[in-house]
């Protein structure tokens, strides 16, 4: 056990604790702060980020209002870098009580809060999305605050003045010696050891947990945790804080915070500050209340939801409460336990709000001075907080600051988190100087993973960088990576529908299908990982799923459409491309139309048929065919079962023949799965692989060298190599720093692929690599070995290096996938078919159980496409073929066909991102017959000339099974064939 001796020990690293430790340090006290996680992981990091003007409290709590405006002015002065000067509006929406307005205006006057009425037209010019039915609007000096940064800077300032900040130190109990608290017994979660901290005075600033902390010293402090839930909108729909002009209530604040707008909050008493969930009704309430502020709010893309617990203090000693009122505001509570409970050496500061954290610290430290018989004046209102490195200036934070910095430095090639523009330098700083213990710690420092994709792209990069910089045991990185995915998932779960659900499925493609992180060595989660929210309580009468209103049909300006198409395919993913290839090859006049490109660009570029035959399987299946037989017998609605073994074999053999003829052969058979390394070093089963990957075969035992490029942020060879080593495959790693790449502003996979198409670059790579080969018998690169001349690039490199080389697939865009996409398009066009992108299908004309035409969106009109047969390959949730709503409805996007999704949205998901069972919503899709025709509930084809293929089919979860491309290939093949039946065969 470690021992630490200090003057004052602070428990809790939220806003209050970090404010107190700075105040104490500035006054010259020797202090230690312990926080059980990272700074600002509790309530501080889970609030809406509003810097109150005080306007919210002028009627209900004028004293709090006065404190807010005073502190608002001080904070703007001492920490502008943490504040965005957004200003705030108080708006009277229809249905709000107009009598509140004069009370509000008068309250502002009395509290000294500047408040001016803004004409509605002016309000709408400033904030065009606001409800035009708002009748009155007042401007107040609200702001938006970065509570993560504020806690960090307070801690940094305290450290500069000698304070010690110990994160991931959890208090087991206060140490009490007779009638005096003399320190605390803590547990260091990182080192897994006990630490005893002795102190003259202990300040309990543990917020919602302060009752529990005091309880360990036998002192009863009743804290009733009040949970508040919030949602963030994907982008800043407002740039001003919007408050409803009414008595403070639920869901009446909308705060622009960095790149998002936060709608909050609810207020529900919970029993335990560590156990609470986000209930579906809370989300619905946010959406409903949001509609009053911004019409259409519930249709906006939500990024995430979160909940924090306010510490609501309930004094149980009547005499003490009365005495307290004279001393401090009702907005926060300072308990002198000597006076209150006869226990010396302990103060508890609780309640309050972020805006008044500094004041709370000042009052607490004043009391501490009094207790320690010393008079030292407060200086926190005078001295500004340090400016963080990489911050654009000394003034207020502003939204464009990061973009301006990136633009100025042309740093756009070094982004780790692209959504939030966190650069490699930012993340490195968080790791080295910020002493990040987890990826989530990096997130709070650098805003990593806080944007639309919620860690989809940056989790791998940050894990790779963490490994590269710190070189911990690789299984620690694996767990950290899974911890972060889990942490991001917990805030997504309550709001997964629509585009955010689509995004989440892309993240599954990346982490399950391409990287296989659920099969990396190491534990599922670490003790440093985030706590999950409790699952939502079952709802007695959940609202009925509402079918989204169909798009308004518009009469197409062009009349009839081109006559004479035999087959129209909708969708350009692998299934659509294969279907169009088959139809065209069978002599059908074929057209493929697609909104954009599809899954080929996201996957591995291999054809997975079946990787795992059950959710619990830790080992991949050896023979996909055997696995498919098992699967088909237990699940007759599985697309493989419907297709049948013979057609499966035919589809594979035809596709292999095509790939060979196209000069890009795919190797393998249904009898055996290959095992190849992924870009995190997991072993990945697949059935057909391009020649460029074959030398990565993990059944071979020869040592490999994994090579990355210093300028490319998508591939970390040390992570790959060490994970392979952890799985008994000998691998070493090398990061090449090539002169020709150094001068480039960005080095993406696409850039590298184009470079590898040129002999000059291959020569440069080979020359740099050859002397470092050592005993490596094969060399693995990220999957970027040429775009149009991959085989040539591979052979040339092999010749130059004298050993086999292979590609390792990683983050999208997938170069091997793009090769397949190009190959299939060329094949379709070779057979007279046509592939058109940018064409979103928005409607159909049907007649007597047949589809006559579909309409695609075009400039100023709708374009009709007439055909004899239609193949729906628009994809599943990820591809955009299935659309989902917040009310829990799922349907096919093109024809509005029903999807067999679980009726309640809460049943769509498992509690964890990597749940082996997979999320039920992703098994939902169309029900089809053996001719791949979508069926109605009575089992009849819905349209006699409609076929379906790929992600839109139900009965399977291609990502959990690792059957994504296999199902696309087989079903596309069969749909293309079925739609061509009766036509002449080639």
């Amino acid at each position, binding site marked *: 056990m470690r021992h630490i001796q200090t003057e004052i020990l602070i428990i809790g690293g939220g806003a209050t604790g970090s404010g107190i430790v700075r105040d104490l340090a500035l006054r010259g006290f020797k202090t230690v702060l312990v926080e059980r996680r990272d700074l600002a992981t509790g309530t501080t990091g889970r609030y809406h980020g509003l810097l109150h003007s005080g306007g919210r409290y002028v009627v209900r709590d004028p004293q709090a209002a006065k404190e807010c405006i005073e502190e608002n002015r001080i904070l703007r002065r001492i920490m502008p870098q943490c504040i965005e000067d957004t200003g705030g509006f108080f708006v009277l929406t229809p249905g709000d009580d107009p009598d509140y307005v004069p009370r509000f205006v008068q309250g502002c006057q009395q509290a000294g809060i500047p408040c001016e009425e803004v004409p509605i037209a002016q309000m709408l010019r400033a904030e065009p999305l606001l409800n035009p039915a708002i009748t009155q609007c007042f401007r107040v000096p609200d702001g938006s605050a970065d509570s993560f940064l504020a806690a960090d800077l307070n801690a940094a300032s305290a450290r500069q003045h000698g304070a010690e900040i110990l994160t991931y130190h959890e208090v087991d109990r206060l140490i009490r010696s007779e009638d005096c608290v003399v320190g605390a017994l803590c547990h260091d979660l990182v080192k897994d050891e006990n630490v005893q901290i002795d102190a003259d005075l202990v300040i309990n600033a543990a917020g919602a947990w302060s009752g529990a902390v005091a309880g360990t010293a036998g002192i009863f402090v009743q804290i009733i945790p009040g949970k508040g839930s919030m949602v963030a909108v994907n982008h800043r729909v407002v740039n001003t804080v919007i408050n409803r002009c009414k008595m403070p209530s639920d869901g009446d604040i909308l705060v622009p915070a960095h790149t998002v707008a936060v709608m909050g909050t609810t207020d529900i008493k919970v029993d335990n500050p560590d156990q609470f969930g986000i209930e579906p009704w809370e989300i619905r309430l946010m959406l409903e209340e949001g509609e009053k502020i911004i019409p259409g709010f519930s249709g906006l893309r939500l990024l995430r939801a979160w909940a924090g617990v306010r510490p609501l203090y309930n004094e149980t000693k009547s005499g003490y409460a009365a005495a307290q009122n004279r001393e401090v505001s009702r907005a926060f509570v300072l308990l002198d336990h000597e006076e209150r409970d006869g226990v010396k050496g302990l103060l508890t500061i609780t309640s309050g709000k972020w805006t008044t954290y500094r004041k709370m610290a000042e009052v607490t430290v004043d009391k501490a001075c009094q207790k320690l018989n010393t008079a030292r004046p407060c200086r926190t209102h005078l001295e500004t907080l340090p400016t963080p490195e990489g911050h654009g200036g000394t003034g207020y934070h502003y939204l464009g600051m990061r973009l301006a910095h990136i633009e100025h430095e042309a740093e756009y090639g070094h982004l780790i988190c692209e959504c939030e523009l966190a650069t490699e330098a930012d993340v490195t700083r968080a790791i080295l100087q910020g002493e990040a213990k987890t990826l989530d710690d990096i997130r709070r420092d650098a805003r990593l993973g806080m944007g639309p994709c919620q860690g989809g792209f940056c989790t791998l990069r940050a894990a790779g960088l963490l490994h590269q910089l710190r070189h911990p045991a690789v299984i620690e990185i694996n767990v950290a990576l899974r911890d972060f995915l889990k942490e991001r998932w917990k805030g997504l779960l309550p709001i997964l529908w629509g585009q955010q659900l689509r995004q989440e499925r892309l993240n599954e493609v990346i982490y399950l299908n391409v990287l296989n992180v659920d099969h990396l060595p190491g534990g599922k989660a670490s003790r440093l990982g985030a706590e999950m929210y409790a699952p939502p309580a079952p709802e007695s009468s959940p609202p009925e799923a509402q079918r989204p209103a169909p798009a308004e049909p518009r009469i197409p300006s062009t009349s009839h459409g081109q006559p004479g198409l035999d087959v129209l395919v909708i969708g350009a993913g692998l299934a659509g491309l294969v279907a169009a290839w088959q139809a065209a090859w069978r002599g059908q006049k074929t057209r493929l139309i697609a909104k954009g490109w599809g899954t080929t660009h996201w996957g591995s570029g291999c054809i997975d048929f079946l990787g795992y035959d059950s959710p619990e399987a830790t080992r991949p299946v050896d023979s996909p065919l055997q696995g498919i037989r098992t699967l088909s017998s237990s699940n007759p609605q599985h697309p493989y079962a419907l297709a049948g073994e013979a057609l499966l074999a035919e589809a594979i053999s035809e596709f292999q023949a095509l790939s060979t003829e196209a000069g890009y052969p795919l190797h393998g058979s249904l009898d055996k799965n290959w095992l190849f390394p992924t870009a995190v070093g997991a072993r990945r089963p697949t059935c057909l692989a391009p020649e460029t990957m074959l030398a990565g075969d993990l059944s071979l035992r020869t040592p490999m060298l994994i090579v990355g490029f210093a300028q490319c942020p998508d591939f970390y060879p040390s992570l790959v190599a060490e994970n392979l080593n952890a799985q008994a495959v000998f691998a070493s790693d090398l990061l090449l720093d090539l002169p020709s790449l150094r001068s480039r502003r960005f080095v993406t996979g*696409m850039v590298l692929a184009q470079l590898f198409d040129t002999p000059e670059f291959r020569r440069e790579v080979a020359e740099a690599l050859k002397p470092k080969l050592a005993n490596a018998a094969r060399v693995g690169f990220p999957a970027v070995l040429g775009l149009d001349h991959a085989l040539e690039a591979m052979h040339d490199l092999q010749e130059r290096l004298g050993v086999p080389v292979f590609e390792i697939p990683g983050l999208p865009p997938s170069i091997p996938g793009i090769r397949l996409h190009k190959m299939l398009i060329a094949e379709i066009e070779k057979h007279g078919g046509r592939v058109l992108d940018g064409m979103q299908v928005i409607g159909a004309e049907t007649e007597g159980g047949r589809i006559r035409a579909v309409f695609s969106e075009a400039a100023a009109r709708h374009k009709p496409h007439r055909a004899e047969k239609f193949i729906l390959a628009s994809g599943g949730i990820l591809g955009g073929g299935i659309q989902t709503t917040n009310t829990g409805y799922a349907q096919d996007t093109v024809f509005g066909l029903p999807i067999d999704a679980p009726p309640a949205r809460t049943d769509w998901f498992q509690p964890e991102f990597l749940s082996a069972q997979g999320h039920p919503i992703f098994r939902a899709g169309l029900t089809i017959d053996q001719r791949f025709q979508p069926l109605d509930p009575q089992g009849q084809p819905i349209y006699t000339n409609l076929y379906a293929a790929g992600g839109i089919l139900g009965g399977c979860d291609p990502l959990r099974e690792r059957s994504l491309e296999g199902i696309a290939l087989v079903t596309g093949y069969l749909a293309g064939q079925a739609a061509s039946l009766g036509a002449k065969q080639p």
Partner: protein
Amino acid sequence: MTAPQHPVEMSLDQCLKCNICTTACPVAAVTDLFPGPKYQGPQGGRFRQPGQPTPDHSIDYCSGCRVCNMVCPAGVKIAEMNARVRATLVEQGKVPPMQRLRNNLVARAATLGKVAQPVAPLANLALSLKPARWVAEVTLGIHHQAPFPPFASQQFGDWFKKHPRPTNPTRQVVYFHGCSTQYYEPRVGRAAVRVLEANGFEVLIPPQNCCGLPLLSNGEFKAARQYHKNNVRSLVEYARQGIPIVGTSTSCTLTLKEEAPELLDMHDEATRLVAEGTYDFNEFLLLLHEEGRLKLDLHPIPLTLAYHVPCQYRAHRLGRPGTEVMNLIPELKIIESQAACCGIAGTYGYKKEKYAIAQQVGSELFDFVRQVGGPVAICDSETCRWQITHATGVPVVHPVELLAAAYGFELESPLAEVAALQAARVG
């Protein structure tokens, strides 16, 4: 201007960050001055706020070709977003004055044409003089090699007024000729008029000015709005009467249909009527064909020709109407290019700092044109034609010129120089 509340910016919520656009962007593929559509569009869009100084410098390298929009599986209006950001830069005075002067100069083909065409020989001499072009590059930033076609000796409008009208037309159609036809390539307009008249139309040419696209793509929204207002005023009555408005310039028709209303927030009824009443020339011919009213009395053209569908044409999202029309011509074999863009992107490739990028973007297409060979190549968009000719030396024609030739109208240069065509005539 770049309020995230505009429908264009709201579309950033659809972005999946998937990078498909980045892999397709022809500009990011050849220069690292442009970080790519995802970065600029939906990603940067979350960091922009109206009224705040825009931090975007690299946006200037977006050529506006719209390839990103076409490949995006989520429907993000990336190119429009970028255009609106550029307009904000202009509005905030972030574009250096000389550069803005240059942009305005290259974006105002109509003004230039009005001044220079009447003195065409002199103007053409000036444009062909190397020292003069160097002076233009140094002073104005217009690249000395950028492809300026010669001014025509006679404006299209003058020819049209004098040409003999058909005696018994059955229907009317409005022809939007655009600036290039008026001042540089009246032969395209002549071919269009002949083809329309051969199909029984009376061709109407109401007053019209530049469609405003070059201004839109240079961020000069204010001037573009005025242009578009004028055009709408002049065209709306025809649209109301159901008289179709057809154009041979794909970028003009796209601007009338969509670009101007969308970028400039013009959603009034007149603008909408004009948009819905405007047709690309091939689109219009195919409609006639579907109704069985297209004259199909076509002479064979025994040639194999390279055809580039311009990116602005693809952005109509109509498929490949040009190919379908030309496939009606006996013996004519069309080979479509797979290249994303010719690089010129309207005025982009004229600029000193972007000329080399534009040439590189177009190199795949240029190789293709050279490889197909043939006495001419085909492209619907004027600046693309000039760019291809500039890079390859191969003359480039509009599809309607081939159709006019197939109808048997007199061959104009460059088709007049094609021996095979002459021979077919004689034969």
